[in-house]
């Protein structure tokens, strides 16, 4: 145990991950539900978090992601289904016996204790000898750069310092898994970026299982090894960040995972002559727009021929210049031009399509007068098609 902490102190990456001296801390949820009276907060969630994995639970507020986290920690009872930590079914195990640590959004530092006492509390609860408690507290405090603050009360700390203390309180116990409940959401933007990176480094050096709850897509994309996207208590999609980003399972995931979200445009799928022929080119029609589906996708999308569908394309796959001969042009009417410095986000309307806003991420020098007609070029190799009824993506091979 001590030896492992020494390794952490030396920031020896991946050392603990290879150490075989500890229990496996995979976390598994099988058909887990949580109901409060008639309200269902979490419905049939099944999720496997591998030992040492950094898993993100992503979703809008009220989607049940924090409830899932609390059920893993044992702070909420499970209405049905089973929760496993390692090999043990922990449904009826008290939080204190699960050996997981939680960092809360509010940090939940004990206000009547000094920073040092906050860090030591969990160790005291486990009846650890005083000398070892002191040693561990010192080491974690040094590691997080809060060793100057050990005698201070939480009220006398800044937001960033409190965040570190909360993190330290989790680290000092050397738990098998870390459960983080939006730990970065109370920090200002700069500090959040720093801590994001630091958490990832920490995870890499400790090799512990992490379940990180957030509503921030940037955190999800940059921190997680896998993302689990939740909506209304249900799992929408689980996968590696880029996989989920490139192959969203439905319109919700497509819209949620990025900002600005994927453009989703109700459309009609048709052949060149409007018949139900089984070969030939396929077209996407929406208002004044008519786009030719790339040949490799036509077999997959042909089932939607002569039917309504939802056409999806990410704003970054829309370009101002036809740099590639395969890109197809559309004409749009400029509604707003948001200059973000590094890029320009163009918000536009499509003639003939009421109420549809179309976003494009363009180069930072792009300018266009409001209300003018502009030609844009779509990279349809990156297009998606969704079923309008089920909102599910139409599967294709690439």
């Amino acid at each position, binding site marked *: 145990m001590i030896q492992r902490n020494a390794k952490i102190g030396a920031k020896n990456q991946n050392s603990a991950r290879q150490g075989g001296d500890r229990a496996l801390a995979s976390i598994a949820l099988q058909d887990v539900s949580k109901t409060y009276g008639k309200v269902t907060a979490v419905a049939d969630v099944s999720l496997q978090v591998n030992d040492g994995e950094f898993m993100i639970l992503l979703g809008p507020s009220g989607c049940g992601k924090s409830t899932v986290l609390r059920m893993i920690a044992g702070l909420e009872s499970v209405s049905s289904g089973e929760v496993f930590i390692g090999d043990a079914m922990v449904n009826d195990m008290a939080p204190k016996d*699960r050996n997981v640590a939680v960092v809360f959004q509010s940090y939940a530092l*004990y206000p009547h204790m000094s920073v040092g006492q906050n860090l030591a509390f969990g160790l005291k*609860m486990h009846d650890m000898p005083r000398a070892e408690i002191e040693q561990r507290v010192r080491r974690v405090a040094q590691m997080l750069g809060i060793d100057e603050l050990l005698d201070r009360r939480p009220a006398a700390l800044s937001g960033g310092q409190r965040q570190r203390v909360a993190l330290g309180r989790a680290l000092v116990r050397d738990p098998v898994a870390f459960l983080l409940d939006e730990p970065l959401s109370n920090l200002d933007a700069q500090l959040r970026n720093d801590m994001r990176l630091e958490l990832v480094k920490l995870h890499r050096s400790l090799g512990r299982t992490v379940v990180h709850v957030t509503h921030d897509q940037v955190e999800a994309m940059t921190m997680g090894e896998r993302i689990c996207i939740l909506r209304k208590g249900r799992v929408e999609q689980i996968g590696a960040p880029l996989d989920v980003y490139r192959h969203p399972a439905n319109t919700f995931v497509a819209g949620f995972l990025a900002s600005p979200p994927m453009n989703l445009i109700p459309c009609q799928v048709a052949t060149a002559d409007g018949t139900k022929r089984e070969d030939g080119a396929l077209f996407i029609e929406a208002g004044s727009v008519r786009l030719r589906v790339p040949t490799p996708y036509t077999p997959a999308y042909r089932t939607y021929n002569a039917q309504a569908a939802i056409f999806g394309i990410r704003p970054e796959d829309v370009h101002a210049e036809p740099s590639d001969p395969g890109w197809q042009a559309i004409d749009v009417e400029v509604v707003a031009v948001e200059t973000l410095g590094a890029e320009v986000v163009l918000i536009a309307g499509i003639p003939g399509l009421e109420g549809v806003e179309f976003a494009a991420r363009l180069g930072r020098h792009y300018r266009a007068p409001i209300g003018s007609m502009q030609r844009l070029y779509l990279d349809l190799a990156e297009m998606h098609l969704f079923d309008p009824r089920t909102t599910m993506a139409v599967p294709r091979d690439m």
Partner: protein
Amino acid sequence: MATRTRERRGSIVTHAVLALFSLYIALPPLWVLRTSFVPEAQSYSIDLMPAFTLDNYVKLLVKDKFWLAYADSLAAATISTLLALPLAAMAGYAFARYRTGGNASRFVILATQMLPPVAIVLPVFTLFRMFDLTNSVSGLVLAYAALNLPFLTWILMGFFEGVPVELEWAAMVDGATVWRAFWRIVLPVSLPGLAAASVLGFILAWNEFLFALVLTGPDTATIPVQLASLQSQNGVQIAEVSAGVVLGVVPLLIASRFIQRYLVRGLTFGAIK
């Protein structure tokens, strides 16, 4: 120039009103203080200080053995509060955190306070006589603890509701049982509330008259009962009563002064959450 005069005039009016209200509040206790130092014969005089004497205090303490009542009151108020407070804390916590018994039980708790004491005192007397608890301070202690329990529970419930549940969660994840999280985290954080509740409980018990009158005898009378006994056929011995009131108020002044800081914070803390 004109505005300054107007400002000053406004300030004078404000202070005059404040002074009037202060006088309205302070005059009765000040008059009691004055009367306690005035000979009995002149106590109803409207002179500010016709004569100065300490006789009332001497008579009260030596002849009427007022210090016995003092000790009884102190014992009854202190012990009953110490008895009720832990129970109230646990009950209040259960109501606040686990919603024990639902909203109905919360209302019932409050409803017990709505009964006029007169309706309870005789059944309590009958009951206590069965157990030989009348004419004793211990009976009074039990009665006060029971009477104050709902009130203290209600106050503390408000406090515990103001304690973020994440604190307890953090403690439980840190390895504490529910009980230890309550003991090590919730109670220390709620110290202002506990202080406020205990002072209020003490004051209620200290000033209580009806139960003390019915449940105690001549040897176990508390301060209010003893003072009431100074009414004789010759009328109320108002100077001596005043001296008793002054002595009776002293511990309350000390107590509230001592924890005023907690009391003020405590009363608002529970209210705004």
